[in-house]
């Protein structure tokens, strides 16, 4: 785990002091609200529908137990006793008072955390594979890269006022759990034919109004050239990204309008110039980062307790089936803790749950926790011998839902319940869906399924890459939900296609039921997942399930015409 260097500590404290001053100057009127806005945004403070919201960075989604306990403390002391984990590996507090925020930031600094650049038109919190350092399919831990980028991008004087926000994700695995192809820059650690490790660099991905899958701008970038190259991309973007329309300001639009080849040559030219006075990155800093992410001291232990429990306890078996992923060591496992209790708010955890998670991580996961972009918590290094104990601990904290990857493991943005931009509710929709399929007892039967819900066109709920995506809109004052099908956030990344006209809030659930029923009929057998089935049979059967009247109406019309 990376712990703050003396420099980090000094820097973050100075930032808190600076923000304290800015809050005072806002209150005194020296700063207008318009001028204060980008300053508070750079410190993670949003103005929401009902109150301020503070977004705290969890760099590359990694935390230790001390940090998790501090989040619990903050939730209790300055908020309403809970926090919300987001799709960007951040945690949000929904009810802080403006005057308390500098104190909260100080409390975060006490445990090497901050809220710097979690919003605003700058380089945001860098995200990484939530199984980093543990995954069995990993070529290299992406977190040293992410930490290097965190340091480089923090308060970068040149890139604080970009045309728009800028998101970078890093993965070291083939399975793209970091969704690199939906980011402004995606980095994939790869090994060249000469056995050299470097990056495949992708650019121009993003969801939002105009969803686009990132394109490869550099098939192989030697590791030591990472920062100059990223800097070149950012400089070209800062100088030529559109500023006349905020919906066209992301780099994906620049890629689209300029053309990948032209943009590549501009970036390469800038990169060449940058290399001319680049003497390499300070090796002391690099070594300290690498050392911080050295693998923990794994211990081999017999796992009969786990095996016995598997035989004896069907609930345990069920939970293990959904929640346990393969670790790079066969005697260890990666546990995903679902924050999607049926009927709860996706991604919310109470302070009591956070403390329980911290305790379990300290005891059984080499003191490490992760936040996934799917709004779940990961215990990345659990010895198989300890899995029964972890399960019992989670059950006691109400955190043992066996639904990871299933239909009720829904990503939902805050929507109308919190967000000022929302055009529809999102959380209650997720709750209804989870409840309904739970009642039907179909969840297990349906198997792997990703439903993602956004409360407006900005797509924070990533609906474009949901197997079933749901987008809540406002049609003349009434909520209307559009369904997209066939999206995929993995290495087979795809943008879902709109199925047809939207549904009212009441009609949505029955429509989804018809959709799922049709899948159960169409699939070859229980092993064919929804998305595989969709890819095989195409959208037609699912469309006709969603709009059963549509074909009838058309027939009726034809008949009338003939008559």
């Amino acid at each position, binding site marked *: 785990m990376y712990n703050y260097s003396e420099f980090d500590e000094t820097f973050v*404290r100075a930032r808190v002091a600076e923000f304290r001053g800015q809050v005072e100057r806002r209150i005194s009127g020296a700063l207008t609200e318009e001028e204060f806005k980008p300053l508070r945004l750079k410190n993670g403070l949003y103005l929401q529908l009902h109150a301020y919201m503070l977004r705290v960075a969890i760099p590359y989604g990694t935390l230790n137990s001390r940090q998790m306990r501090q989040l619990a403390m903050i939730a209790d002391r300055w908020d309403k006793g809970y926090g919300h984990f987001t799709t960007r590996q951040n945690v949000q507090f929904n009810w802080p008072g403006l005057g308390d925020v500098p104190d909260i930031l100080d409390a975060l600094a006490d445990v090497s955390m901050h809220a710097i650049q979690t919003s605003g038109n700058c380089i945001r919190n860098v995200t990484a594979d939530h199984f980093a350092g543990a995954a069995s399919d990993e070529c290299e831990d992406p977190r040293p890269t992410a930490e*290097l980028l965190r340091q480089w991008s923090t308060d970068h004087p040149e890139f*604080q006022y970009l045309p728009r926000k800028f998101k970078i994700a890093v993965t070291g695995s083939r399975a793209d759990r970091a969704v690199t192809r939906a980011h402004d820059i995606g980095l994939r650690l790869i090994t060249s034919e000469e056995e050299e490790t470097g990056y495949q660099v992708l650019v121009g991905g993003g969801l939002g109004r105009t969803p686009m899958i990132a394109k490869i701008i550099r098939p192989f970038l030697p590791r030591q050239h990472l920062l100059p190259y990223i800097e070149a991309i950012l400089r070209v973007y800062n100088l030529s990204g559109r500023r006349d329309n905020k919906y066209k300001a992301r780099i994906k639009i620049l890629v689209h309008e300029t053309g990948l080849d032209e943009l590549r040559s501009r970036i390469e030219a800038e990169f060449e110039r940058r290399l001319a006075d680049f*003497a390499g990155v300070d090796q002391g800093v690099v070594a300290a980062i690498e050392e911080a992410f050295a693998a923990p001291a794994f211990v081999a232990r017999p796992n009969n307790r786990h095996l016995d429990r598997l035989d004896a306890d069907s609930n345990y078996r069920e939970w293990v089936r959904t929640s346990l992923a393969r670790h790079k060591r066969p005697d260890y496992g990666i546990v995903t803790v679902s924050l999607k209790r049926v009927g709860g708010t996706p991604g919310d955890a109470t302070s009591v749950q956070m403390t329980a998670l911290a305790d379990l991580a300290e005891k059984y996961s080499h003191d490490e926790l992760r936040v996934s972009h799917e709004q779940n918590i990961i215990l990345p290094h659990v010895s198989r011998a300890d899995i029964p104990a972890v399960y019992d601990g989670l059950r006691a904290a109400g955190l043992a839902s066996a639904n990871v990857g299933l239909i009720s493991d829904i990503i939902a943005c805050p929507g109308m319940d919190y967000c000022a931009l929302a055009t529809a509710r999102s959380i209650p929709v997720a709750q209804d869906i989870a409840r309904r399929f739970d009642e039907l007892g179909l969840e297990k039967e349906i198997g792997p399924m990703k439903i993602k819900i956004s409360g407006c066109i900005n797509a924070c709920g990533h609906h474009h890459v949901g197997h079933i995506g749901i987008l809540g809109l406002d049609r003349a004052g009434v909520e209307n939900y559009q369904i997209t099908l066939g999206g995929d956030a993995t290495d087979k990344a795809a943008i879902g296609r709109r199925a047809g006209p939207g549904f009212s809030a009441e009609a949505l659930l029955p429509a989804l039921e018809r959709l799922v029923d049709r899948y159960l009929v169409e699939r070859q057998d229980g092993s064919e997942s929804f998305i595989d089935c969709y890819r095989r049979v195409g959208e037609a059967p699912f469309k006709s399930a969603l709009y059963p009247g549509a074909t009838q109406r058309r027939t009726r019309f034809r008949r009338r015409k003939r008559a």
Partner: protein
Amino acid sequence: MNSIIVRDDGFHEDELSEAVFTSLETLKTGVEVPVYLHLENDEDPACLPLYFCWLRLIRIPFPDFADGRGFSLASAIRRLGYQGCLRARGHLIADQYRQARQSGFDEVEIGKGLAARQPERQWLVQLANNPGSYQDRLFGKRPVPAAPKSGHLRPELSPSSAGMPTV
């Protein structure tokens, strides 16, 4: 005099308030005497090295404090090797002073209204509280020397008093 110049030692009157600035287009047609250049923030600085010895100062506008092109432009011009004075002009706020300096600017020209609302102290504190930057830590201090502190801007050398012609 409608402008205030912010430098590391505080607020100053604008010695160049009477000076005539040359556009990039004019510069490219050729100059015979050193000039003050006004570079729009969407202009390409790549050709500038040809003219460096003719430039007494480069001024880059900030139409809006949220428009950060000027920062990249300044940085790019420094990387091209320019060692003279770089001035940011327009809507920058005190909280951006450090970024302006770190990106390569020597000074900032602001309106008197803004200067009244955000007095000297609020600008200077930006440097006083400077914990150092991550970028310096990663790359070592930038090899860009600061411009000779406004030496060529002293009133007795200023073009207005010297009756400096423009091209």
